[in-house]
C-alpha cells in the first residue's frame, strides 16, 4: 500500500492511489458481517476492532520514527519519515565504519531509539482504539442507511473526523510531546555521532587535502566576524558628517605632512567620502 508519509515528494497520483486503496480497505471494514446488516443486531465490537487494527497499522507504518530525524538507519525501524532521513545523506554504519568506542555509542543510540519507538507504538494503539470507539458511537443512523457511494463518502468523512480528534487529543499531551522530542534528539545524536566519528570521512578528508567540517565552520566564523567589522565600519562612515578633504584644506597652509608619499595622497583623494 502506498503511504504518502513514505515519500514527501510531489507524487499526487501515487498519493491518490494510496488513499483510494485505504478507502477501499475502510469500506471493507464498514461492511463486516453484522455492521449495519439488515435484520441483525450490529456487532459494533467487531467493527471497532477491525477499524482500530487497520488504523494502528497505518499509524505505525507511517509515523513510527517521529517527524524530524527518523531512525531510518536503525535496524528494524519503520518506513516512517525514511525519505526525509535519507536526504540527510548516507550514514556510514557497519563494521569498520567507526572505532569500537564510537560504534558502541552508535549502537546505544540505536537501542535507545528502538525503546522510544516502542513507547510511541503504545500511543498509536491508544489513538486507534479511541478513534474506532468514537466512530462506532457516532455512526448512529448512518449505519442503517442504504449503501450508496455518497453514503460511503459520508461515513469516510465521519471516520476521518473521529481519527483526527483522537489523534489531536493524544499528540497534545505533554508526555507525547516529550517523547517526540526525545525521538528527534536521539535520531539527531545518532546522525551526529555517525558523521563525527566516521573514520571513513576523516580518512577521505585527509587523503584529498580537504578541510574538515570543523575547519570549514571555523572559517565561516572568521568570515562572519570580518563581515560584521566591515558593516560596522561602513555604518560609522555613513553616520560621520562629511569632513573637508584634508589634502585640499591643507593646501597653501603648509599643513600637509611632507613625509606622506605621493601615491598615498592620490589614494586618499580617491577615497574622498561621497557627500
Amino acid at each position, binding site marked *: 500500500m502506498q*503511504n*504518502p*508519509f513514505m515519500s*514527501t515528494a*510531489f*507524487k*499526487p*497520483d501515487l*498519493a*491518490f*492511489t*494510496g*488513499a*483510494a*486503496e*485505504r*478507502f*477501499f480497505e475502510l*469500506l*471493507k471494514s464498514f*461492511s463486516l458481517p453484522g455492521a449495519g446488516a439488515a435484520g441483525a443486531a450490529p456487532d459494533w465490537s467487531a467493527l471497532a476492532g477491525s477499524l482500530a487494527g487497520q488504523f494502528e497499522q497505518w499509524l505505525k507504518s*507511517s*509515523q513510527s520514527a517521529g*517527524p*524530524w*530525524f527518523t531512525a531510518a538507519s536503525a535496524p528494524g525501524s519503520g518506513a516512517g*519519515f525514511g*525519505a*526525509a532521513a535519507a*536526504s*540527510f545523506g548516507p550514514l556510514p554504519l557497519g563494521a569498520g565504519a567507526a572505532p569500537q568506542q564510537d560504534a558502541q555509542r552508535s549502537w546505544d543510540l540505536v537501542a535507545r531509539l528502538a525503546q522510544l519507538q516502542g513507547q510511541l507504538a503504545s500511543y498509536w494503539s491508544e489513538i486507534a482504539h479511541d478513534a474506532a470507539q468514537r466512530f462506532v458511537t457516532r455512526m448512529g443512523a448512518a449505519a442503517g442507511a*442504504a*449503501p*450508496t*457511494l455518497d453514503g*460511503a*463518502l459520508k461515513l*469516510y*468523512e465521519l471516520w*476521518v473526523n473521529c*481519527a*483526527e480528534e483522537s*489523534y*489531536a487529543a493524544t*499528540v*497534545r499531551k505533554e508526555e507525547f*510531546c*516529550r517523547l517526540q*522530542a526525545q525521538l528527534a*534528539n536521539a535520531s*539527531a*545524536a545518532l*546522525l*551526529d555521532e555517525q*558523521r*563525527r566519528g566516521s573514520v571513513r570521512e576523516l580518512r577521505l578528508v585527509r587523503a584529498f587535502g580537504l578541510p574538515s567540517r570543523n575547519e570549514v565552520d571555523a572559517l565561516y*566564523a572568521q568570515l*562572519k566576524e570580518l*563581515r560584521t567589522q566591515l*558593516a560596522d565600519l561602513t555604518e560609522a562612515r555613513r553616520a560621520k558628517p562629511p569632513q573637508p578633504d584634508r589634502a585640499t584644506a591643507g593646501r597653501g597652509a603648509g599643513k600637509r605632512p611632507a613625509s606622506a608619499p605621493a601615491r598615498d595622497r592620490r589614494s586618499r583623494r580617491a577615497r574622498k567620502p561621497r557627500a
Partner: protein
Amino acid sequence: MRPFTADASFLAGAAGAFVPELTLRVADTLARLRQARDVTVGCSAKRAVWSFGKTTLYEYLPLREAARDAPQRSAARPLLICFALVNRPYVLDLQPDRSLVRRLLDAGLSVYLIDWGDPDDADRCLDLEDYVERHLGGCVRHILVSRGTSSLDLLGVCQGGVLSLCYTALHRREVANLVTLTTPVDFHTPDNLLSKWVRELDTELLRQSGNVPGEALNGLFLALMPFRLTQQKYVRLLAGNSDQRALEDFVRMERWIFDSPPQAAVALAEFVRWFYQENRLIRGTLRIGGKRVDLAAIVQPVLNLYALGDHIVPPAASAAMERCLGSRDYTGCGIDTGHIGMYASRKGADEIPSRIISWLRERP
C-alpha cells in the same frame, strides 16, 4: 507504476452496488491527475535585480493594463514581499486567478519578492542575523538605492513576517508601512501544536546535524493533521464534482506543498530556540546581531492578517501582535480560512489582496 485495482469482493449484493461506479471514478481521477502532473506554477513576469548568496531579489514587471498608469506607479512606494524560509514564494503567484502578486500589480503597485533559494552545505552556518541584516537588509537597501527613495512598504508572510517584524524594529526609517500575513508573535499559545512538539528539541544537536532537508519539515507539517492532509484530501477528489480545472488547481497546490527548500542548520536551530522554545520576540529578549529587537519600536502603520482556521500559526499567536507594537495605527483582521487558504484559496485570493491594497492606499 502498478495499476489501481479495487478488490470489491467483500462488498456483496446491495452493499457492493456502488463499487463499479467508485472504481470508474478512481480510474478516471487517476488518469486526469497524471495528465495534470506537469501543470505550470507562477504566472507573472519578473526579473532578478539583486542577489546575495543563494538569495535572489525579483522585481515583477508591470501588467500591460497597469502600465498605462506607469508614471504613477514609478512614483509609488515600492512593496517588498518577504516570504518564509521554509516554503517557496511562488505560491503568491500560483496562477492568474489566484495570485496575490498579480492583484497587487494590477493595482499599480511596484512589487519586489525575495526568493531565499536552496541553502547547501556551504550555507549551514547562516544564522538569523545573516538572513535579517544581510539578505533581507540587502534587498531593502538595493531597492531604496535603485528607486531613489528613503523607505518602502514591507509585506511579510508567515516566518517571513517574523523576519520582517525584526527588520522593521531594527531599521525603523526604512519601512513606511508593514503588512504581515499569518505571522506568529506569541509562540506559546496553548493551541500551538508545533510549538509543543519542538519545545524540548536539542537545538545544539540540530545545529550540529547540518542542514535540514525540506522533506523533513514537510513531514512535520503533515503530521499535524495526518488524516486530512495525507488521506482525506485525495479521497475527496472522488466526490465527483471536480472538473479538470479544479484538479489542476489541486495539483498546483500539491506541487507547492511538496516543494520545500532545505533549511540552513544554524538559522533553523536559532529560530526553534529563540522563537518556539524561548518565545523571545514577545518577551522582548530577542537580540539579532547584538541589537535588541523591541516590537514597541515599531511605530509605523501595521496591517496584520491571520487565518481563523490556521493549524500552523493559531490566530491567537498572531493576534497577540497588537499588544506588543508601539504603533498607534494597527489593523488586525482574522480571515475565515486556513493557513494555506490565505494564499491559495479562492476566498484568500479575493479577500487578502483587496484588504492590502485598500489599506496601503489609505497610507500613501
